Structure formats: structure tokens, C-alpha cells
């Protein structure tokens, strides 16, 4: 349903009909298939997952051990939503969503400048500046100097500065619905539940459905043609953590979260919404459970941070803060998912920005490598060159 409304047109047999593209600011059609994409807020991440999150699908982020980077991705996603004026729905069980929203990265200043310019009246601006008559390009004299449609909010993907926070007036005026679990569901109901459905997840799904219905994001309900549509951004932070009532660390027999994800897919496929979910899968004991959750989401990436692990000292990783694995990419409305040309990515968090890059091994590591038996390069299973000189050296040393 989402595809038939959002894609570039009907089949090639009907060339004369009007194209049914939805022009929604802040989105763009995918080059891979006829789908609408929204940005995650991190342009390098958008690039590796095929352009962005497909509208109507779920991007699952498997959290790193401390949850910092996943929380950062959620903040970027929400900040991008505010910049593009997409309504937000943010849920969280531990941190109050308001606190998350208060700490969003600020957009880089020239974007704010553009946004401010858009809000001014274009005609008053024209009156202020002197119109020198053009001598050469006199044909263009009467055209407007400013195109009012192109404001910062219709741009796809913005750049943010992590050292500053977004102004509270921007976050307060953004349309958002916050779901904080202790407020929505009293503690008695959360604790022990028998039966198949976790009431916390049911409550969350019902509020998602309510927002979709009230905000007119539902594609099955016909809307008047001239109504401007927008995309709902749903962020579910740290779903499946023990605070949501996951018992036994998620063994295969617990079907509450898989059923929630399946039902969520049913809602999203017929709505103009994109969803980012972070789940602390490192807490689950059973890998099969994690695999089932992955199959029920459309795109999956996993973050692994180096903090506190032995990889932190590894010289091959010295520029980076963690690794990013793409486990699955969205196949919705197409025969195949987007195929990246490599699967080794690492991320780094600088003072001002978070970026994802391809992991390149340096051609040769330094001689300061003390312990040959922990050969880091041989341990990395990447197809890059450069391993052979190091392993040759260690053989000779023995």
C-alpha cells in the first residue's frame, strides 16, 4: 500500500497518466526501487543502508553494551525529524522521552540561517534590497530572487553539531507524542503477566495506532488531494530491555516481542511512517530469539563499541570507537535488498559529529606491536590486503 502511493508512477504501459508521487518535504525517492526514504540524521549511515530508511519499514539497531551509541542514533533520528518537520513518536522505559528530546544535537548553523530566511516574508525581503537593473541578464529581472519552496526543512539529511544542543524552542514546538512507560502503564500491571501478551507492548502498539489514525498517516483512508502529507517518525528506544518486562532474558519461548514486531509491521505497511527501534540484544541469552526478531524487522544493523573490550588497544582500530555490522537490509517492495559493496564498517564519535566509515586496514602496522601472538591483523577477517607482511614477521620470530 505504501508503495503504490509513494512510488514514481504506474507501470510503463500507462505513460500518459499523472504520476502519483507524494511530494513530502524531507523525503526522497530511492534510487534502488520505487520507494520513499527518510534520513536517519547521519548521512554516512544513510549511505550504507541504501539511502535512508524506507517509509513503511523498521530499522532495528542492536545496541552496544553500554547503549551510548544507540541512544545517539536515536537522538539524530529525532533531530532530523524536527528539522524536516516530521511529527515524532518517541517511547522509552528508562529515560523520560523529554530528557532525550532536550539533548538533541543542534543543526549546523547555515541550516538554521536558511530556515530563518524561509520564515521571513519573501516579498518584504525583496522590498528591502535595492533592485539594480540588470544589464546583461535582463531577462531574469522579473524572476524572484529567492525560491520560497526550498527551505531547510525540505532538504534530505542535515548536518549536526554534537557540541551544541538544539534550542528548546525548536524541540518544544515540534509535534510529538511521548510514551513513557511508567506513566502509561501503572507498575502493578507491568510486573507479572501471565499469558501470551505483554501489556506494555500492547499499550505501545495501541498508542502507535492511535497516532497513525489521528495524524492521518494511514494510507488506507483516502485523503483529499490537496492535503499536504508528512511522514511520522517512530522511535522506540531500548525496547525489549528488562524494564519492558522481558523475562528470562528472552528465551525462545517468549513470543511477546516477536508478535509486537509482526503487528507493528502490519501497521507500518499501510502508513506513512518510518520506525527506528533499538533493542539491547546483547542481553538475550538465546541467539535464536535475536534471529527471529531480526527476521521480523526490515533492516538491521548492530553496533559494537570498543569501550572496555580488548579491541580498544588494537592499533588497527585506533581511529574508531566501534564497529557497525549490517545484518540485513530492507527488502520491502522489491525483489532484492540493496547490496552494499562491502560489509566492514566502523564508526567514530568526534567532538562534533558521529560518522560511519568503511574499515580500511593500514598497509602495514607499526613495529611498536609488542605481542606477536595477539596478532590483530590476522584476527580480522577482512578481505583487505596487508596482512601478509605481519604474519610473515611473526613466523620468523618464532
Amino acid at each position, binding site marked *: 500500500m505504501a508503495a*503504490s502511493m509513494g512510488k514514481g508512477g504506474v*507501470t510503463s504501459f500507462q505513460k500518459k497518466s499523472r504520476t502519483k508521487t507524494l511530494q513530502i518535504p524531507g523525503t526522497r525517492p530511492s534510487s534502488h526501487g520505487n520507494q520513499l526514504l527518510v534520513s536517519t540524521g547521519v548521512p554516512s549511515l544513510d549511505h550504507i543502508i541504501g539511502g535512508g530508511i524506507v517509509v513503511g519499514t523498521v530499522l532495528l539497531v542492536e545496541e552496544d553494551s553500554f547503549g551510548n551509541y544507540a541512544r545517539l542514533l536515536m537522538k539524530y533520528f529525532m533531530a532530523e525529524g524536527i528539522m524536516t518537520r516530521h511529527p515524532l513518536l518517541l517511547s522509552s522505559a528508562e529515560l523520560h522521552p523529554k530528557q532525550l528530546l532536550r539533548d538533541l544535537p543542534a543543526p549546523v548553523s547555515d541550516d538554521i540561517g536558511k530556515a530563518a530566511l524561509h520564515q521571513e516574508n519573501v516579498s518584504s525581503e525583496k522590498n528591502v534590497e535595492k533592485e539594480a537593473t540588470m544589464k546583461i541578464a535582463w531577462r531574469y529581472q522579473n524572476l524572484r530572487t529567492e525560491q520560497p519552496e526550498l527551505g531547510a526543512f525540505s532538504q534530505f539529511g542535515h548536518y549536526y553539531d554534537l557540541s551544541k544542543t538544539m534550542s528548546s524552542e525548536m524541540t518544544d514546538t515540534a509535534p510529538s507524542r511521548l510514551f513513557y512507560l511508567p506513566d502509561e502503564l501503572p507498575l502493578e500491571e507491568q510486573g507479572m503477566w501471565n499469558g501470551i501478551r505483554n501489556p506494555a507492548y500492547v499499550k505501545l502498539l495501541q498508542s502507535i495506532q492511535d497516532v497513525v489514525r489521528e495524524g492521518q498517516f494511514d494510507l488506507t483512508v483516502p485523503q483529499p488531494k490537496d492535503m499536504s502529507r508528512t511522514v511520522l517518525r517512530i522511535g522506540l528506544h531500548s525496547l525489549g530491555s528488562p524494564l519492558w518486562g522481558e523475562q528470562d532474558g528472552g528465551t525462545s519461548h517468549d513470543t511477546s516481542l*516477536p508478535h509486537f514486531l*509482526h*503487528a507493528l509491521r502490519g501497521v507500518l*505497511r*499501510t502508513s506513512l511512517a518510518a520506525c527506528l527501534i533499538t533493542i539491547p540484544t546483547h542481553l538475550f541469552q538465546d541467539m*535464536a530469539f535475536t534471529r527471529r526478531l531480526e527476521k521480523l524487522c526490515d533492516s538491521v544493523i548492530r553496533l559494537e563499541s570498543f569501550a572496555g573490550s580488548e579491541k580498544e588497544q588494537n592499533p588497527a582500530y585506533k581511529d574508531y570507537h566501534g564497529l557497525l555490522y549490517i545484518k540485513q537490509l530492507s527488502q520491502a*517492495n522489491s*525483489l532484492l535488498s540493496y547490496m552494499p559493496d562491502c560489509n566492514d564498517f566502523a564508526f567514530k564519535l568526534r567532538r562534533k559529529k558521529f560518522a560511519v566509515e568503511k574499515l580500511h586496514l593500514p598497509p602495514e602496522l607499526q613495529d611498536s606491536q609488542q605481542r606477536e601472538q595477539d596478532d590483530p591483523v590476522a584476527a580480522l577477517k577482512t578481505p583487505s590486503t596487508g596482512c601478509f607482511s605481519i604474519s610473515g614477521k611473526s613466523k620468523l620470530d618464532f
Partner: protein
Amino acid sequence: MEDSCVRGQFVLISDSLTDGSFLIHHFLSLYIKGGWKVCLLALAQSFGHYNAVGQKLGVPLTQAREKGQLRFIDGLKCSLQMYTCAPQEGQGENPLRALRDKKATLRPLYDLVKTQICSEEGVLEGPTLLLVDDLSVLVSLGVSAKDVSDFMHYCRVLMCPTQQGYCRVLMCPTQQSQGAIVSLVHKDADVEDEENSTLFRHMAYHGTVHLAVEGLSSGYSRDVHGQSNLY
């Protein structure tokens, strides 16, 4: 085209660490073009998805659905309804009652499939294909492997009655099986998922053809997506 749609086959597609659902699209377009009646039990994706891919492959699914050649059972919608309705109301007609009620089986789902493809006498009219996408979703949602296996057994008896080799002598020779089944099961090699493995073994036993789709043994490559074996 007609020759490649074989009757009486139970085809099992399994995928390991990759996605075998492209074969579902392939079989769907093959049988629709071949003029068969198709019942698509869609548990993993919405109708829009199959339609979008079908348009690229040159198979107009919306028209097939309107004409009645394609019967679509929307599993996502039934599952959503089961999830959000209150315990007392709304469970009556939903074919996926087993998701809420531990004592129920997939019998209502089988009844729905039967009403969709059979005539009033309960017999298949013309060549019919049952396409199930996919069975592992049922397991993930909490249905036991045994219940899914029973459901598929009933479907197989409905669609391909002369399949059991040892019974062929006893069956009336004029009864030519009209139907075929294609279903998909996920079988990831790196993860130990007992229910899924049990389900896979049962399906492999029932099936006549097994298409295994997996990634290349040498690792990830952009241009060649994987390999598939036929058993």
C-alpha cells in the same frame, strides 16, 4: 510455461543466512502466468509488496486478485487484529486464533484456505497452487512446530492427494492430483533454533522437492548473491 508448472509437488524452500523469498515471487509469477489458480497465504509481507514486485516481473496481481485467479490471505492484518483486540471480543472469526489461545490449533486457518480454493463440495477445481510465505513466522509467533506441521499435512492432503508413494496403488488411478504447494522455511546454519529445525525436518520429510538457498561459501560478494541446491 505450462510444462514447468508441475502438479502434485510439495516444494520446500529453505534459506540459510540469506533470504529465499525471491523464489516465492518467482513461483507466484510462474504459476499466475501459467493460468493456475493461486492461494497466497502471506504471513510475512503485505499485498503491496507482492504487487510491487509482481509489476516489475510483469504479473499484474491486482487484476488477478479481482478476477479471482489469486486468493490473498492477509496474515499481517489478522495478526495485528489478534494482537490488539480485547480478550473477549473479536476473536471469533480470526483464522490466527492460535496466536492468543494456547489450546487452539491452526485448524481455522486450514478452513479458511479450503474455503478460498475449493468449490462447495470441497474438491479442488482446476490446477491450484498454495503458496505459503513463510512458515517460520508462525513459529516465531508462538505456534508449535507440531501444529504447523499438522496444518501443512492437512494442506498437502488437500492439494496433492496422490503424493504418498506407497498409497498410490490403493488410490483410484483416475484421481489426478490437481494442486501443488510451495512453502518457505528459514533455517539459519549459525544459530540453534530448535523449533525451526524441527519444523524444517518435518517439512523436508513431507516435501518432494527441496530448494536450499544459501550464501556463497567463500563469503560475501556483491554480484553473486548466493547458491541454491536442489534435492
